């Protein structure tokens, strides 16, 4: 696993973090939450990357959802036997609703990319990754839950709070559009550079 993204890596960092959390400031139930975060952060970030399409939004998604869930940690633990699954579901839903807001913002003003702060997209040359980018968020979430998480249609439906029929139609729309994009890319290569 090569680190494509320059980041300050693990090693002492994590150990120190854990020690500090246990030793000092964390009262009561949040100790448990700190351990949960420590154990699951890398996996959640990766999942977030698949969902959101870039590391920045992934980090943002993970942080927002975890903070929200952490603030109700004992309640969440009580309510669900599998907090990790709960977090992942929340991320998928947060991704969907966030995108709606973003789109609304983008309709108002087109924000130019501040290239100085934008790291190279590791999947820049992956047509499929680029095609995923154009999917509506719910379709993307369905695709990620299905091909990244390996969930069944019913499980996806339960996660996103939609009917299995919706999942089915969203999945087939998404696949059709991905397939179309992949084909289209090949075909348009020389042809219609309008």
């Amino acid at each position, binding site marked *: 696993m090569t*680190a494509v993204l320059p980041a300050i890596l693990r090693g002492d960092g994590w150990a120190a973090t854990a020690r500090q959390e246990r030793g000092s400031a964390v009262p009561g139930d949040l100790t448990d*939450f700190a351990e949960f975060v420590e154990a699951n952060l*890398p996996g959640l970030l990766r999942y977030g990357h698949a969902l959101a399409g870039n590391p920045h939004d992934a980090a943002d998604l993970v942080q927002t959802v975890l903070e929200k869930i952490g603030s109700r940690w004992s309640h969440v633990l009580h309510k669900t036997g599998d907090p990790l699954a709960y977090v992942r579901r929340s991320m998928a839903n947060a991704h969907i609703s966030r995108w709606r807001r*973003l789109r609304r913002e983008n309709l108002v003003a087109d*924000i130019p990319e501040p290239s100085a702060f934008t790291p190279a997209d590791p999947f820049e040359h992956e047509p499929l990754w680029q095609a995923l980018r154009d999917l509506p968020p719910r379709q993307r979430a369905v695709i990620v839950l299905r091909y*990244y998480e390996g969930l069944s249609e019913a499980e996806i439906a339960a996660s996103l709070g*939609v*009917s299995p029929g919706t999942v089915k139609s969203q999945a087939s729309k998404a696949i059709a559009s991905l397939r179309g994009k*992949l084909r289209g890319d090949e075909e348009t290569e020389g042809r219609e550079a309008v």
Partner: protein
Amino acid sequence: MSDRSPDDDAVGAELRRLFDDDRLDVRPVAGAGDAIVAGARRRRRRRAAVASGGGTLAVLVLVGGGLALTTLRGGDDQPQPPVAAMPQTTTTTSALGSPSASSASPERSEPTLGESQAPPSPEQQSPQSPPTRSSTSAASTSASVYIDRPMLRPDGYRQLTLGMSYQEAAATGLLGPAESTTPPAENACATYAVTDGTNAIDDVTISRANGIVRFRAADAATPQGIGAGSSLDQLRSAYSDLAVESNGYSASASAGARYSFVVATETVTELQLVARDSDC
């Protein structure tokens, strides 16, 4: 997900390969966990402060999720929620997974707090009611539009009620074909199609421990006439106690259950009745 054409399989295989790629890894920066725990604690403190802050704020929340939530957020007078994912803000708002030199401190993650609480569709684009897009759907009252809709009562649908065990529910004869259904496994939940010859309810989710914990409506609407297809305006005028959820709103249905409304593009896309006590 069985009957896929070879083409779909090809795309599926490509997707699996892509999602298995090491390049998907995002490494957290040191201290990322601290930042999150600190953020969670801040959030909890703030909620406690709001809860004890008396009736005024509570009333604001009841009036309309969008307005109230942005008001609650530290008195910034911008009606729009901060969009943390915008390019120019990400480097300072994310305390983790930082791909560049911005080792954001926990404090700087503050702007993202409360972010995902923002309602999916505040009415900031059209301050007035939008008569333009109601040419096809009657704009008058919600009741007149949905008067014929089957009803998802606060306690359930037809003989199916919240809390009912799988055995009781199966005995009503309203669950999918008997030979295809089995009870939920120990410590698990399962979802069953409702087959009563109508398209009122899509399915129910039954927990081994808590019985029926969720109804997912298709055509059915609440007693107030709100269901899939209702506009956000109709939803708001029918329920004064809407709470914001990750993908829509919810309103209390009874002491033990709430109606959950999935909202997209100012329209209710799905109605559910969800038990408060659910382990699913």
